[in-house]
């Protein structure tokens, strides 16, 4: 009898725990956070696999290199490589992964092949903000302007404005963004000489010091303007078309007709009734777009010689600096995950139908 009671109690505790976990899963913010952590975990695992486990991986290659001429023993080589990568190669593989994970969380991504004093983390953090700034500005601008144009295109559906905006938008966003970048350099920079591209190279002009001065901020924008323009042009098409479709759908909704029946002004209906409902789902797409753009940033930074994380990655590739490569992969992924999380949180705040305890 006592055993039955005890068993029942255990079951009760377990089901309470499961309920708690279940309710945690259902809460959208917590779920988004959990997903973010999981994604970083998986990205770390993939990176670990790439550099450690797959055949032909950089760590093994490095050890081979060091032991090839006989100047080091296998153990010595392993130890040396362990200082470069945030992994202790003397441990069994699963433990290596845990060490790796732990170090990554603490911010230790190893050091560059070229200079063991330069930590990968510091290298990347020197350039990452530039990329995030350019990408973020370009993306936000394209979102805001794109939504405005899309709304107008829907309202003036069928007009020449609509056709022009929709066609140009879809053309520019279908062409690969790095090609547009090259074309800008070619046509406006070289052929027409409208843009001083040589001066615009890099992220900062020589001699300008970081600080909250107008000179610094102005210089930053000067150098970032071409990448921002490219991000802006190549993404705006998507927002225009999405918003146009969403607005057309929203205009058909009953509550818009009902609002008109109540005598509300067209401008109020456009902003709070049509606009908000149409734009809201697009906020989630903002997050997904971040991932894509950051990928394309590599090539665009190459074209404009903009010293962001993309350009740094290419340099690491050219120098076969694998620790820096894997560091960039991880940190960029984390940035995108954080951006996604921010977008999810923003959405849950904006849409009253999400995550509200009624």
């Amino acid at each position, binding site marked *: 009898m006592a055993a039955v009671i005890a068993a029942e109690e255990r079951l009760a505790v377990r089901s309470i725990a499961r309920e708690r976990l279940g309710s945690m899963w259902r809460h959208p913010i917590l779920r988004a956070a959990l*997903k973010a952590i999981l994604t970083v975990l998986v990205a770390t695992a993939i990176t670990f696999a790439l550099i450690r486990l797959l055949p032909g991986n950089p760590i093994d290659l490095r050890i081979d290199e060091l032991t090839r001429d006989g100047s080091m023993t296998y153990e010595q080589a392993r130890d040396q490589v362990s200082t470069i990568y945030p992994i202790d190669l003397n441990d069994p593989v699963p433990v290596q992964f845990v060490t790796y994970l732990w170090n990554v969380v603490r911010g230790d991504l190893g050091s560059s092949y070229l200079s063991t004093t330069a930590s990968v983390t510091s290298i990347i953090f020197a350039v990452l903000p530039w990329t995030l700034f350019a990408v973020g500005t370009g993306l936000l601008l394209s979102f805001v302007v794109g939504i405005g144009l899309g709304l107008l295109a829907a309202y003036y559906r069928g007009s020449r404005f609509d056709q022009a905006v929709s066609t140009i938008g879809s053309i520019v966003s279908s062409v690969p963004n790095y*090609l547009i970048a090259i074309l800008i350099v070619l046509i406006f920079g070289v*052929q027409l000489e409208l843009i001083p591209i040589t001066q615009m190279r890099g992220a900062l002009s020589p001699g300008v010091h970081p600080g909250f001065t107008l000179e610094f901020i102005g210089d930053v924008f000067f150098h970032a303007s071409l990448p921002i323009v490219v991000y802006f042009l190549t993404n705006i098409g998507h927002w225009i078309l999405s918003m146009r479709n969403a607005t057309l759908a929203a205009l058909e909704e009953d509550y818009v007709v009902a609002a008109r029946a109540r005598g509300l002004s067209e401008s109020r209906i456009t902003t709070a009734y049509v606009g908000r409902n149409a734009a809201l789902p697009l906020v989630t797409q903002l997050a997904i777009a971040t991932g894509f753009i950051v990928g394309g940033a*590599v090539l665009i930074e190459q074209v404009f010689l903009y010293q962001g994380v993309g350009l740094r990655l290419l340099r690491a*590739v050219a120098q076969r600096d694998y620790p820096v490569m894997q560091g960039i992969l991880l940190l960029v992924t984390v940035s995108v995950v954080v951006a996604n999380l921010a977008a999810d949180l923003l959405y849950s705040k904006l849409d009253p139908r999400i995550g509200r305890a009624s």
Partner: protein
Amino acid sequence: MSLIRVIARKPAGLLGLIGVGGFLLLAYVVPFFVPLHNTVDIASVYVQPSFDHPLGTDFQGRDVLNQIVYGGRDILTIGFLAALFSTAIAITFGSLGATLGGKIDTIILGVADIVLTVPHLIVLIVVAAIFRPTGFLVIAIVLASLQWAGLLRQVRAQVLSLKEREYVEAARSLDLGLPHLIFREMLPNMASYIAIHFIFAMTGAVYAQVGLIVLGLIPQTGANWGVMLQLALQQGAIYFSDSVLYVLSPILAIALFQLSLVALASGLEDVFNPRLRAT
């Protein structure tokens, strides 16, 4: 064919059809009639457009137009293969997850979400830098390995909605089995999604491919638009007015091909939507 007629009804669809058809001809058929001019001729470096060389020559005196003709085949082939693989993966696991539901569905969806979050090109760059793939198939597989995620979510959403429809219930009650359910009942209704996304998968594959080639990470031999572009950039062809055509030609070829694909996809939008089709 009535299919072509429906696509051609929209101006975008018509242009897309012509464009894609034209490029397919250019890449696969024209080379049979035009020999490859691969010889280096230092005397004719960056020649102006003429009857012999309608698009001029490159930094080694080779005819640009000829390279354009031959440069599409590899890119189109790899793009097609990559799109094929990613579409296959997306359909299989998307419909599987949706029909089976439960834990399997959660796992599949979770993996897809993660893959969608990760920045594709950077992963591709790192993978290419470490493993240096060169074979067609390998490259196609690598490209496809990240692209399936977007389509998978769409397929899954479609299947989920179709699952509730009556004819699926009917088929299920007849106990016709899972493969029949997926392939005979649901997929034909998603043909439009699949076709359109196949096309977009191709544009994505071409984008990634050319990007990686330009960065020198997947070296290709033979004439190739991406290689043309890479060499042109390397040679600084942007900065000389003589070499403008050499750098512009592959850019235009790639851009026009992408545009044709997108236009064709928009033409297809109306094809499979019976409500839009009914006049």
